[in-house]
């Protein structure tokens, strides 16, 4: 077998990127369950408390979630929990 001298090998993971449309934003929020995901930075909870108060005052059903740490991605279990129980999600607080 001979090897090619006029070729290079791909240094990437060679994962195909699949173009997908974003899910259109939900315009109608009545009867929607809104998830609030804290990323666990300082004062995330405090910020989301205020958001929760505003949404609850408007009659929305609000559920709270929290990542264990902002230094790592959210565990799969939390993401699945949000997908199962919520219609929309608000994530915060970043700096």
């Amino acid at each position, binding site marked *: 077998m*001979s090897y090619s001298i*006029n070729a290079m*090998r*791909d*240094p990437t993971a060679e994962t195909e990127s699949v173009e997908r449309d974003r899910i259109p934003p939900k315009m109608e929020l009545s009867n929607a369950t809104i998830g609030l995901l804290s990323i666990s930075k300082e004062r995330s909870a405090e910020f989301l408390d205020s958001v929760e108060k505003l949404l609850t005052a408007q009659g929305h059903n609000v559920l709270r979630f929290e990542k264990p740490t902002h230094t790592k991605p959210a565990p799969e279990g939390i993401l699945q929990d949000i997908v199962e129980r919520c219609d929309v999600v608000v994530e915060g607080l970043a*700096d």
Partner: protein
Amino acid sequence: MFVMEFLAVVKRDCETCKLVEPVLAELRDTHGVTLYSQDDPAFPELLGGAEDDRALKQSWRLRIETVPTLVRLEEGAEVSRTEGWDRTEWARVTGMSNIGVGLPPFQPGCGSRTQDPGMPEKLALQYGNLTFDSREIELGEDDDPAEIAFDRGWTDGMPVVPPTDLRIARMLSGTARAPDEIIGLIPPNLAECTVEKVAINAVMAGCRPEYLPVVLAVTEAALKPEFSMHGLLATLWFSGPVIIVNGPVSKRLGMNWGGNVFGQGNRANATIGRAFQLLIRNVGGGRPREIDRSVFGNPGKYSFCFPEDETDPDWMSLNVARGSAPGSSTVTLFHGDGVQGIADQKSRDPESLARSLAMGLCGVTHPKLAEYSNAILAISPDHYDIFKAEGWGRAEVESALREALRRPGRDLVEGEQGVGAGIDPSRAEEMVDKFREGGLLVVRAGGRGGLFSAIIGGWTGQRRHTEVQIVSQEIGI
């Protein structure tokens, strides 16, 4: 009656091959011999030349390391061989007790061309079963491989060495590990990373094959969950992975721990760190201004790798202080920023110098913040002399720094000194440590001529000290 054959591999550019010419003629007349010449099929003239093996196919198949090599086959299978000229050995292999009478009893052979630098890998690709799983990117006749690499987004902004099969094969000769071994999942895309992908990126970074085990160890260290590579990549802060190499490996690879240790000019320092950064970019998909959200970044994100100065036996090296066996080679990965110098040309006693260096360290992240990030302190040889003259080693230096880095909380709380930033007001009555235990890495590095040392601040994510930790990894083969 079994079938007996002899094969001999020779080259003209070998005095011992010329010496055995009459012996080979003797063998041919008695039993017959098939000759292969690695450099000139007209040689040996006495026997009317040899089979042309300039392409080294037979030499590779026969695993020839020395010429001349004589091989005895019975029923097509090798039963014995001898290398160079040793009359006793040739007599044993041929069964001809009087072979080569008149020649000196012994003369060593020469290196086979199959052993020339880079040749084993070339032959393994040509005739062996060395193949790669990575996709082949064909180049057109007029394509510049460096430009193709830029166009495909494979580079850090500087040119890369084109990863051709031969270069990858030579890179892989630096490790005993199989190309298809999976090292782990590289963030942010959590893409599977094989030894082959590490080798390809190491080629592009400009590494030599002997650096590959270090790059592999860096990759394994970075993938430990407690290092939080994903968070380090994604952070808004300046940091990137800073690699500290300890042990005999740094001398073996010719790394620089002396003058300009954090600067340009040393191939191993420059390319080991770069290889890992390219791996994050190419295999992990972590690119600046995408998942990498750094507000400023820092030049160390091209590459930041250096060895500790271990030339003074009185100084306990960082890896030993962190629990590795003395004499072992390791990498330690730190989430670090750029370099901040601290000058002190007046301190003449170790107590003063430790307090002085601590003042510089208080500035890491923010002078009024505490336990908010870690740091590296690199002590220069001239500063180290002041500690050593009074018998201070690692333990004394670290202890004095720890003491000097403990400050009254009331000076640091938010709003104090007319500055909003600071620690939580609830800590006003405490004495507060600047760094958590183990969070300040003290190393020796740098050249002579300056009474200054260097500070490398750490990632603010390190304040989550249970989730974000400095990691070490032994370098394998």
